[in-house]
């Protein structure tokens, strides 16, 4: 009897968390498919009288969201790719080798996690403007790769620690050099970890807004967050269009998260801290 009561309480608790988590997203989606006339009503009209994709059409034709989307995609994929590659190399050395500076280097990586984006974006801006690289996707790719590599190295270490050394040693005895041992033997065994690092870096790059707004200002260079930012600044944007923009901004991370959820959670709890 008591057990059953606890079970019911638990189910109610779980239900509340689920509703609270999902409701905002569902609501913004419903707003995005409402006809413009039903967006601003009070009391609120919960379900649209008919579903329309006008707002999305506006985004992708008039507001050129396909271009922003492409830019964001290039930036996030390229920076996540490089980050993953670099952090596997660094993570490997910092796990397998013992040398004097090792602890210091690991602490540097943790320290870098604590530096907020907005703090270093001004010096980054002056540096990149001297290199004539502001307002290029290259600039933000380099910056995001820096963040991603630091963070990815910490994650890579967590995964590599769990991988027995004997496997690579066997490969080395079989005549592989150390690069080959890493890329032909270790990394294939580490695929969930690799996927987890890549997804993390992708999501972080996709979501970054403040550096992007400072660096990218011409229309053809904008990423999705920058476009959303400029939406807010422009008066008179309809909320159904805004809602569609938000859905477009969130969609890739939701897709990545649902595909890699298990590995992302694993990567997070294995010692990598998002900060």
């Amino acid at each position, binding site marked *: 009897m008591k057990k059953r009561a606890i079970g019911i309480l*638990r189910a109610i*608790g*779980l239900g509340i968390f689920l509703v*609270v*988590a*999902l409701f905002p*997203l569902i*609501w*913004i989606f419903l707003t995005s498919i409402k006809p413009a006339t039903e*967006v601003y009503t*009070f009391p*609120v009209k919960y379900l649209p009288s008919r579903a329309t994709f006008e707002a999305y059409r506006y985004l992708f034709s008039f507001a050129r969201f396909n271009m922003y989307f492409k830019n964001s995609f290039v930036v996030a994929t390229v920076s996540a790719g490089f980050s993953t*590659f*670099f952090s596997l190399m*660094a993570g490997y*050395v*910092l796990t397998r080798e013992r040398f004097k500076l090792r602890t210091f280097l*690991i*602490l540097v990586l*943790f*320290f870098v996690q*604590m530096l*907020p984006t*907005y*703090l*270093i974006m*001004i*010096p*980054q*801006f002056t540096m990149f403007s*001297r290199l004539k690289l502001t307002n290029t996707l290259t600039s933000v790719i*380099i910056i995001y*790769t*820096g*963040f991603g*590599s630091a963070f990815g*190295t910490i994650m890579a270490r967590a995964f590599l620690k769990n991988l027995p050394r004997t496997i690579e040693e066997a490969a080395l005895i079989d005549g592989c050099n*150390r*690069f080959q041992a890493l890329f032909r033997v270790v990394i294939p065994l580490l695929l969930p970890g690799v996927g987890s690092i890549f997804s993390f870096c992708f*999501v972080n790059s996709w*979501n970054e807004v*403040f550096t992007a*707004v400072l660096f990218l200002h011409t229309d053809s260079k904008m990423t999705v967050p920058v476009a*959303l*930012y400029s939406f807010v600044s422009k008066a008179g944007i309809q*909320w159904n269009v*805004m809602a569609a923009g*938000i859905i477009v*901004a*969130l969609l890739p991370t*939701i897709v990545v998260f*649902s595909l890699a*959820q*298990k590995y992302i*959670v694993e990567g997070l*709890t294995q*010692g990598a*801290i*998002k*900060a």
Partner: protein
Amino acid sequence: MKRSKFWILMLVPTFALVFFVNLYPLVRGGVISFQRLTVFNLNNPRFVGWNNYRTILNDPAFPRLLWNTFVWIACSVAFQFLFGLILALLLAKPFFGRGLYMGLVFYPWALSGFAIGLLWSWLLNGQFGIVNDVLIRLGLLKTPIGFLSDERFAMFSVILVNVWYGIPFFAIMLLAAIQSIPSELYEAAQIDGAGFFRKLFSVTLPYIRPTIYSTVLLRIIWVMNFPDIIYGMTRGGPAGATNILSVQMINIVYYRNNFGLASALGMIITAILTIFAVIYLTLLERGEFEL
């Protein structure tokens, strides 16, 4: 190839980038904080000594900025932890469909804070917001309230959203820790006749203490560094009611283009962050948790 050459080569890309993109800019930021530097004189800054720092510390709004930052951090982290712990405890025992459930409940953690802020600013809209609508239909309110436009509610609203956003992170970390507790400990408590709360306070919480320490500390640093949600919702308004240090710094960059002033504020934030970083390192050193 010699061993040492090999590992130096492997470390170069990451650490060269970290130096170029993070560490050198940090030092440069320190230099800029003593300069008058705007978009218009990027290549010929002027040295102004402590002027920027004086401007910031003498601003009559500064004490309020500090207070807001404190309230933002304390309330956000406390409630993220509390609800994260409850969720982790609910998830601790397996049930049918738990994997799917975790995916659905944890997803907000991976979303863009700025977009989340925008999303919630629509839900909390004072004229057409669904939160107002629900509260009125339940009979809890007579007329809609301006969650974001009314100074009395604005800080409460942004914290609410930040709590919503941060629950999954705590839940993930705490759940992992809870699942590593050996079941014998619970069995022993069971034999001693311990109830739910007794088990929670005598077994669960003490066992996961290292995770709690490290997660809470890192969250304090992260929340202090996290202007995204406030930026998406209010940009620090109305009338500075939700303005915190990091939001103020971004406003100085974007609206006043005064990079020297913004950098000085940035260095002040770094100084405050350093305190938490030192606490973190001290606990690390004492073996409360490990890297």
